[in-house]
């Protein structure tokens, strides 16, 4: 058998060139820079630098503030992912059952989708403002001695609340379209087979939504890790005492506020490895339970 060989034309490479250039300039090159920087120690003015091997890494990973940020990031991203998925799923299931005025209802729920994280943060700032914030007043009125400027738990509550609120509408859209993708007759067959609606949801609807849920979980973890930067920067800035520092926010703070480029680069390399490991775990262990 002779293998068929088509003549190659250079034109396809031209078509993908813009994408390759973008990836190279904005992703590969900075990543390489970060890895290179993470081995250097710079003076405060950036005039000289010194190769220090893995010192930046050991300083980072064994420092208390990094461990604190890592702990907060774990709690924060777990809560943000779980809560925003759960609330969105509940809303989508209910919205899917609405018959009258369904469109208005759904549109209202989707609205927040268009809001950028920093804007959501600014809105949160207003609502939790100690003088004019309604939510701030409400919290104190119901007997919670609420002060997110001083209390670490309250500050975490604020950033989680805003992050979840911002993400619910995104998840809602996906869940709703996922629900609408379930064949009507399968739902009907289930009604004839199972009387209990809750049980029907967990045995039929939820498993059929699994591909959507898995996709959203990956997206949401990424969101909680990286995109919430804008929310934290506009609300708590990691305060009080670094208790609302996520790993990403700490990279920014140490690098740009603290002028420790080497340490910050080392942190971002570690962060990259953490996210990589997390993604591998998700695809290896959770995706297995998903039937497409």
């Amino acid at each position, binding site marked *: 058998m002779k293998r068929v060989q088509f003549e190659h034309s250079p034109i396809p490479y031209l078509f993908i060139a813009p994408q390759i250039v973008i990836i190279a300039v904005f992703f590969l090159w900075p990543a390489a820079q970060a890895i290179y920087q993470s081995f250097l120690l710079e003076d405060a003015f950036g005039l000289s630098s010194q190769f220090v091997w893995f010192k930046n890494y050991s300083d980072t990973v064994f420092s208390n503030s990094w461990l604190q940020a890592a702990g907060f990031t774990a709690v924060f991203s777990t809560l943000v992912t779980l809560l925003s998925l759960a609330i969105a799923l509940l809303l989508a299931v209910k919205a899917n059952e609405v018959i009258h005025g369904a469109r208005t209802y759904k549109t209202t729920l989707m609205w927040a989708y268009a809001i950028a994280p920093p804007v959501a943060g600014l809105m949160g700032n207003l609502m939790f403002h100690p003088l004019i914030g309604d939510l701030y007043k409400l919290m104190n009125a119901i007997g919670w001695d609420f002060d997110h400027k001083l209390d670490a738990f309250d500050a975490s509550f604020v950033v989680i609340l805003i992050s979840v609120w911002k993400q619910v509408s995104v998840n809602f859209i996906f869940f709703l379209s996922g629900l609408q993708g379930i064949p009507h007759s399968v739902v009907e067959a289930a009604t*004839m*087979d199972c009387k209990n609606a809750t049980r029907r949801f967990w045995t039929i609807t939820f498993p059929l939504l699994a591909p959507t849920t898995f996709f959203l979980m990956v997206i949401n973890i990424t969101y909680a890790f990286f995109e919430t930067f804008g929310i934290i920067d506009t609300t708590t800035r990691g305060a009080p005492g670094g208790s609302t520092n996520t790993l990403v926010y700490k990279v920014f703070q140490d690098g740009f506020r603290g002028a420790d480029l080497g340490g910050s680069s080392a942190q971002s390399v570690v962060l990259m490895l953490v996210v990589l490991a997390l993604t591998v775990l998700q695809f290896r262990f959770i995706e297995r339970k998903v039937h497409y």
Partner: protein
Amino acid sequence: MAGVELTGVRKIYPNGAEAVRGVDMTIEHGEFIVFVGPSGCGKSTLLRMVAGLESITEGEISIDGRIINEVSPADRDVAMVFQNYALYPHMTVRGNMSYGLKNRGNSKAEIHEKVEEAAKMLRIHDFLDRRPQQLSGGQRQRVAMGRAIVREPKVFLFDEPLSNLDAKLRVQMRIEIKRLQRRMDVTSIYVTHDQTEAMTLADRLAVINDGRIEQMGAPLELYNNPTTLFVASFIGSPQINLVPVVFDGDKLISGDIALSGFKDLPTDADLVLGIRPDDLTQNGEGEVSLRVDLVEQHGAENLIYGALLGAAAEEGEETEICIKVDQQTLPKIDATLKLGVNKSRALVFRKDNGQRVL
């Protein structure tokens, strides 16, 4: 003993559309009833009302003497086979079949036994642990049947279950459904728009048109004695030949054609003469003649389609008719055939309301 009784059943949708306009029907235990009619006639809606998937606007449906209007679908003791099978894609064949039983609280051993038995009956034993995606259309169809059988319901409901299968498989499954229903002796309601399926499966056939039952009866009864023009034209393949006529006191007249031997017909109304293709015979001194347009060879017999010469028709149009002849008869295109009419089997309807007058 589980009969089904429908009294004054109506379905009006919130937008005012009336899908079912008052249906009364008594189905005896073990009967195989087929609802047949053109699409949009309300036959599926009626079936879904029995299943509990559509609410009943007016009237009552009872199964085995119990009124089920307000009973949830799962408690009605009915099982349904859907057109696209509606299998649960994330469950294995076994999971699909045992799901309903599990929810009814049957024990594991009992479920296992029932599933095995049904699987043997339907010959799906070899793929009990596969998922629906891995099965062919015919196999999925069997699984859908199996899911209905294991529940041992009082009534089986079939919503066009064979329309997604290829022609050969359809005939095969049709026979199997009939055999299974006989064996299990379960009251069944079957919806189809395919009149061959309807004729071959039904103990009794309900022809539905525009939300009403046009006529209900044994298949042959409907074929031989349709009470309306609609039933006559819906039942029978190839379709009955219809010729517009008037009655002048002793002859049926259509253009240049005059057929004698009829009496006691209304003379003041436009009529339609209906003759089945089998009731026209080729015959040298026949009363009507046909100009051959097309010959369809079906193997055992040929169908000849052509224009009925001399018949009154709309301007520029000719009255198309069809006759059934044996396989040896192969007339040339445009040849003229003389036909004899079996008048004892001729049907005459009023054109205005479709009611049969002879």
